[in-house]
């Protein structure tokens, strides 16, 4: 061991580099969690091919893929931004990972930023893959309303993230896992993915954000119309309420 091996050498690595490294690590960790990848990609793919190509459910339209693919995209956003994120954050908090990384030069805001970015990267990749598979089997969406479709997706992802971080902060990790999975299954069954969502009027958009998001994607991509104001309002409310609650209650340990 050379002399000076131990001599302190302080300095500064640029914050952008540090956060970039953390984003890559978050993605690597996600890729290594087999069950997370299956939940994030396997279930949506199965629904897409099953309900999209075969007459297994009654749909309010003849364009099966036109109905199912937007729903599957919405489902994927939920499973990544909500279910996956709630479970990982819950366990990382209890293991002390968040506390330790927050104490390193990464800092706490840096860690949150990296996690958010990693979730967004995942969502973009998943939407591209599912969109491509859909296209390959015959899905032909309209492209004129693409911007509102993206905007409404960002809003939905923000609300899901807020709820995920909130659950992970106030519940034990095992309870978080249970609750997040239960909500996923519940939303999958009544969220208007494989068959039409229950007609609850406008209130339904506020109770079932997945149904609201799926409906908004169908309005834009299938029917080439604009997103109803009630859906903007519902997803906007979810985002503001749960992000605020998460910011107030988020715990690192």
């Amino acid at each position: 061991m050379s002399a000076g091996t131990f001599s302190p050498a302080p300095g500064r690595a640029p914050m952008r580099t540090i956060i970039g490294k953390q984003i890559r690590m978050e993605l690597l960790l996600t890729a290594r969690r087999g069950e997370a990848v299956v939940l994030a990609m396997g279930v949506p793919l199965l629904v897409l091919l099953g309900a999209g190509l075969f007459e297994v459910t009654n749909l309010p339209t003849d364009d099966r893929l036109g109905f199912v693919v937007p729903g599957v995209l919405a489902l994927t956003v939920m499973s990544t931004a909500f279910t996956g994120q709630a479970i990982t954050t819950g366990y990382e908090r209890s293991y002390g990972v968040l506390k330790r990384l927050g104490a390193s030069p990464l800092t706490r805001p840096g860690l949150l930023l990296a996690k958010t970015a990693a979730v967004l990267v995942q969502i973009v990749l998943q939407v591209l893959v599912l969109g491509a598979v859909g296209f390959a089997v015959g899905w032909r969406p309209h492209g004129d309303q693409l911007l509102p479709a993206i905007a409404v997706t960002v809003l939905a992802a923000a609300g899901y993230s807020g709820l995920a971080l909130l659950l992970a902060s106030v519940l034990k990790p095992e309870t978080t896992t249970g609750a997040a999975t239960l909500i996923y299954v519940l939303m999958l069954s009544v969220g208007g993915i494989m068959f039409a969502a229950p007609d609850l009027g406008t209130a339904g958009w506020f109770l079932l954000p997945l149904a609201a998001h799926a409906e908004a994607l169908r309005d834009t991509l299938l029917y080439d119309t604009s997103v109803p104001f009630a859906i903007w309002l519902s997803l906007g409310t979810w985002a503001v309420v749960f992000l605020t609650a998460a910011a107030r209650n988020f715990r690192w340990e």
Partner: protein
Amino acid sequence: MEAIEVTGLRKTYKNREAVDGIDLVVARGEIFALLGPNGAGKTTTVEILEGHRRRSGGDVRVLGEDPGKAGSAWRTRVGIVLQDAADAADLTVREMIRHVGGFYPEPRSADEVIELVGLTAKSKSKIRTLSGGQRRRVDVALGIVGRPELLFLDEPTTGFDPEARRQFWELIRKLAGDGTTIVLTTHYLDEAEALADRLAVMADGRIVAEGTPATLGGRSGAAARVRWRTADGVAHDERHEDPTELIHRLVNTGVDLTTLTITRPTLEDTYLSLIGEAR
């Protein structure tokens, strides 16, 4: 400039004073140990110094900056080994150390750090497969990978076997020898005695004594305890400021000296009486 300067530090939780007005100075290059029972306020104090917890009052300077406001440049100069062992389930030892090393401008190489903490044989194992003591060593490795000027160690050797503790002490002495300032909290009095240049004892949020391991709590000036047994089997136990004269007398009266013991209070005796008084 001192590494740490603290005056009148206070931390109040709802209706409890966790830290109740303490003063501390740690010089550069020093190994400083903070002792005290669970709940004494050691971890709270250290977490405030690490910039991890807000204080309720008082003035704190760590490496010349207020840790409550310091940025990421300051963080790269400070190494932290937290009390609870962490677990990044699906990373290997080497991956985790390389990753965190990447947050620092001039990190030590992962292999070097792994060897320093004695985990070479486990470097390719996933962290979640390690034993508690081995995970603790990963924590220590992550604390030193960035070549900190100041290293905080919160109960670092919990879960170590005796040999691993000795190796760890050697590592700490080596780091200190190269100019790293070290602040350590521990339950093990032999650890404090073996490592610390200076130490302080906390109880109920206050510092009840401060000194070197030899002088803490008036230990060097304390009375010696002399015990012996006479031929008729009667046990004697006396305290003397200077036992020399007593020993002379015993020799002259023909006492069996094989039963004679002279002891000064150990660090443990001093510590227990200090925290006993504070309660």
